[in-house]
Each structure stands twice: as C-alpha cells, then as structure tokens.
C-alpha cells in the first residue's frame, strides 16, 4: 500500500493522511493508491501539511508498517528514548521498528 505523510506546519509533528484529515499515528494512515501526490499538494496549499510525500507500507494487523526503517523511526520516535516515543509504555514498540 501507499501512505501519505508529512509534517504539521506550525509544530513540525510527523503526521499521516487518514483519508479525511491528518493524524499523529501511522495506524490511522490509509492507502492512497495513486492519489497521494495530488492530495499532498492540495493539503500543502491549504497549509495543513508541510513537505508531504508518499511512502510504501505493508498492511498489517496493527495498521500500516512503513517499508523503510527511516519512516518507521519517524512514525514512533527515537528508538534510544522510548519515553519520548508515541508509545512510551509499549516495551515491544521499538523492536517492531527495527
């Protein structure tokens, strides 16, 4: 599947396209098929995202898993600071990134 990501303009937070808006959680991302770039450009023009781009992901039971480790680190947070990730209480989260 293809998913659309970028950063929130005022905060810089990593965000994912949900089909209707943007979420901080990659689990909310939807398959954008071939429309990702068009959606990204339209959303960027409305300043609802900064620097949008489409990545490949696999569909898993826990939601989309980005194909590249860089996007998996982006999706969770720094692997060396579990306390600062989106899942500070999930001990297995970091192993899933790597």
């Amino acid at each position: 599947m293809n998913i659309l990501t970028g950063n929130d303009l005022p905060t810089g937070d990593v965000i994912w396209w949900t089909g209707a808006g943007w979420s901080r959680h990659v689990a909310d991302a939807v398959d954008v098929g071939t429309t990702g770039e068009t959606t990204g450009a339209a959303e960027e023009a409305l300043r609802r995202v900064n620097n949008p781009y489409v990545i490949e992901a696999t569909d898993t039971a826990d939601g989309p898993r980005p194909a590249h480790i860089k996007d998996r680190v982006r999706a969770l947070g720094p692997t060396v600071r579990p306390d600062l990730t989106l899942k500070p209480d999930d001990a297995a989260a970091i192993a899933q990134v790597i």
Partner: protein
Amino acid sequence: MYKYDQYDQSIVDARVDEFRDQARRRLAGEITEDQFKPLRLKNGLYLQLHAYMLRVAIPYGTLDSRQMRKLAYIARTYDRGYGHFTTRQNIQYNWIKLEEAPDILADLATVEMHAIQTSGESIRNVSSDQYAGASADEIADPRPWAELIRQATTFHPEFSYLPRKFKIAVIASAEDRAAMRLHDIGLRLVANDAGDLGFEVYVGGGMGRTPFIAPLIRAFLPVDHLFSYCEAVLRVWNRTARRDNIHKQRVKILVHQMGAEAFAAAVEAEWQEILPNKSDVPRAEFDRIAAYFTPPAFEAGDREPDRADPDFAVWLDQNVKPHKHPGYAIVNISLKPIGGIPGDASADQIDLMADLAERHSFDELRVTHAQNIVLPHVRKADLYTIWQALVDAGLAESNLDLISDIIACPGLDYCSLANARSIPVAQKIATRFAGRQRDLGELKLKISGCINACGHHHAGHIGILGVDKKGTENYQLLLGGSGAEDASLGKITGPGFSEDGIVDAIERVTDQYIAVRQDGERFLDTYRRVGMDGFKEAIYG
C-alpha cells in the same frame, strides 16, 4: 569573555525581528516552503526526522553560566527537556515548533546568542581549543583571533552565498584538540625566531564523503594580516569552485585538484591584490577584542586535592588536566555516561554545570568537539566538591579519551539524512567495554550515521560508518584515523557488519591490540606499526 557592544546586539535583535516576520508570513501562507526554507536555514532551523531542529551557535565553544542557563531554559520551555552538544561545539534541539522558534531566538538574543550562520553556504561558527586560555602549552589564547574572524565574517555579503559551507578553526598549541586540520581553514598560532606571532595556515581539510587533511599553504602569516589572507583564500575558492555538483564544491576539492602549491600561489597573488585595500582589522580593534579575554584573577596558593577516595582519584587522573596557573586545573565533564546518549544533557544537568561554572570556574564553560563540557579554571581545592556534585548528577564518568568517550552523530534516531542509527551502537560499545576501558588506554571511537561524517568517523582511531544495505542498517569499520596533531584518515577494514556484529568486530580489534601492543603504545601507535594487515585476520578470520 567577549561581550556584545551595541552594534553586535542591534544586528542580532534585528535578525530576530526579521525572522519573526518571515515565520509569521510562512504560517499565514504568504510565502511557500520553498521560499521559506533558505530563510529558516539562515537561522539554524532545519526540518528533521521528528520535528524542526534548531542549531544554536556557541562561538568557539565558550559560554558563561547565564548563557548556559538560557540553554537549559530553552530545553525545558520549548523542547523536551534536553539538548545535544555537537562536534562543532554547538547545541542542537530536536523538538522545536516553528511557531515558537522566533521566541527562542529572542530569548537567545537576551544572552548574546543566536543561530546565525549555523547552516547554509556560509562561514560557520569558528571553532577552537576547549582549553584556550587555560592550557599550559598554548602560545597565547587563540579566542581573540576566533572572535575577530567571527565579527569580520558575520553577515559579510561577499561570503553569504559561498559555493558551500566553510569552517574555520583556530588553535595556539602543538597539541591539536580541535581537529584543526579537518577544517576548510585551520590556523595554528606560532611564534617565529624573532618572537613575533603568526599563523600556520592549513587549507582544504574536511570530512564528508571525500575526506582530506588540510595541507599547509603558508608557514607564517603575521597575525595582523589574518583577515585579508582568509579573504584571499575565500575569494580564490569563491571564484574558482565548481557550482554544478554539490559534492565537489568544498574548498578541499579545489585544493586537491589544483595541488596545495598551486592553490597557495593563487592565494598569494590574490592576497597581494587585496592588501592595498587595507581590509585587515586594525590592531586597535584587535586589542579591544583581546581585552575581553584577559585571564581571570587567579588566586595564589597550590594545594593538591586529597586522593583518599579511590573513585575520585580515578576521575582526577582521567578527566582533570593541568592548568597554566599553579593551584588550578581544567575539569572535563563527560557527557558520555556508560549506556547513555553521547553529547546529550538534560535541562537540569545543563543548569547544574552552569552553577558549577559560576561558583568554581570564573563563570566560564566550554563545549568540546568531542561533545563534552569543560570547566576551564577550577581551583584544585574545589575539585572534590565539584566531583561530588557531578556524581549526584550522573556527570562524573571517568572516561575522557577512552573507548566509551565516543563521538556519535544523532544518526537515524533523529536525522533525516541518516542510513543507520549511531547512538545504539555507541551505547552497546560503551557498555561492552566499560569494565576494561582503562586497560585499553587512549582510544578515540567515532560514529557517523551516514557519509556526511558529522560524527568524524574518518578521524577515529576506530571509526564506524552507518550504511544502508538493502533497507537494513549496516556498519563499516575503519581503523587508524586521528583528528589530533598526528592527523590521519582511517581506512575501511573490509565488508561491513550488522549492529551486534560491529560490536563483536571491535572487540576482536581491541583483543588483537592487547595481544600485539608494545610498552606504552596507544591503539593508534600499534595500528601504525603493524598496519591493517596486523588486524585484518583477527577481524575477519
């Protein structure tokens, strides 16, 4: 320490106002990201893996307790409670919001700090020796010269759109603690036979994908001509450099292609053209700057600290260095706790270091290119008190220049250019060797998460480079580099390793070193004696 005059303050304040308006226009949609990006980069604001990242300049790594406390305040107020001290003696914050960035710059300006020229194709923060003004082996304090270069190049329009970034280092001792020859211009203050001061000028060093050690292009440049000569170097480069290939635009490529001799001749000719313009900073202006670096009022008396506490004695031997004034010492505060993140410090730790500097080091701190902090002027009588405070704060690791004193770039945990993570590798190595690191002696290990080499891997006695091997992290091993006065570039051992594999490979390297070392040899000395062949079989079997 240098204090801003009204002019310095006004240009920094004006820059804050300008950036506030630029950020406002970006948030309001009056300008696009393509238009805004070069403007934010001129103020050290990058978009990184998790958020915006702000790089704050710490000129030649020197700061006072008021500035250090402001760095803690920013970490606490605008970031997530910590900062990362970098190999360029600066600090980076990883979780910055664009909407708050103008306020941060305004806060910095209240303590004479900024993020100007910390990015882009400009003359970057000038680096220097972290022991400047304190070390017994220096000819003079190099920082007034660094400050002169800072002033003469800040906002200089001719040097605002250079072919690439440009980094200058100034040192004043035979021992090189600033990786001087890995800069675009490296300057070493020396005295000639007549006792006059001048600079050895090295041009064309650098790391990145094409590392070079800067060759000497002038053996003695009278100090009064420092600026005009640097100007000549910059002009020859600015005029001649390629601008069609970002990887070939640094001055090191030009020097390499022309040859050091031809490059030196071109600079000499340009310099003769420039000299009649009298662009050098007048001696009176230098004297005004130098007055800010007058040594503090050291007290008389010399009392050696009591070594009864064995842990304290280990710290004294490893992290405390001789001072030029009897009765004083230089304290290195390690930001490399075993298993910790190299160069990171929490807001509370930053505040504590500021307190210690205010009470015990004439209000001065330094950031080192090895990502540690220095208290430059400490009374020996105060060392035990300081050590106890550092122990309580988790800052008393006795590992300066040992294998766990690792330089590591942020890598894939924070950096959008990375191929692999650096920090976890550093943590595993430090943990693996913690109990026996003193037996291994001086061993500088440096890790970069990609070929850009922010972690100085080319200059590590042992270097590690993260690469992307079909989507998984892989690590190349290098041996034999040095960023010190015996500068050399490391060589790749052979095929790379997995994350755990690289830690095992390093253990095979250190085991081999222990097996073949001769009396008094550091790892680097042994490597230079036996060569790569002396290690290759141990590594790959």
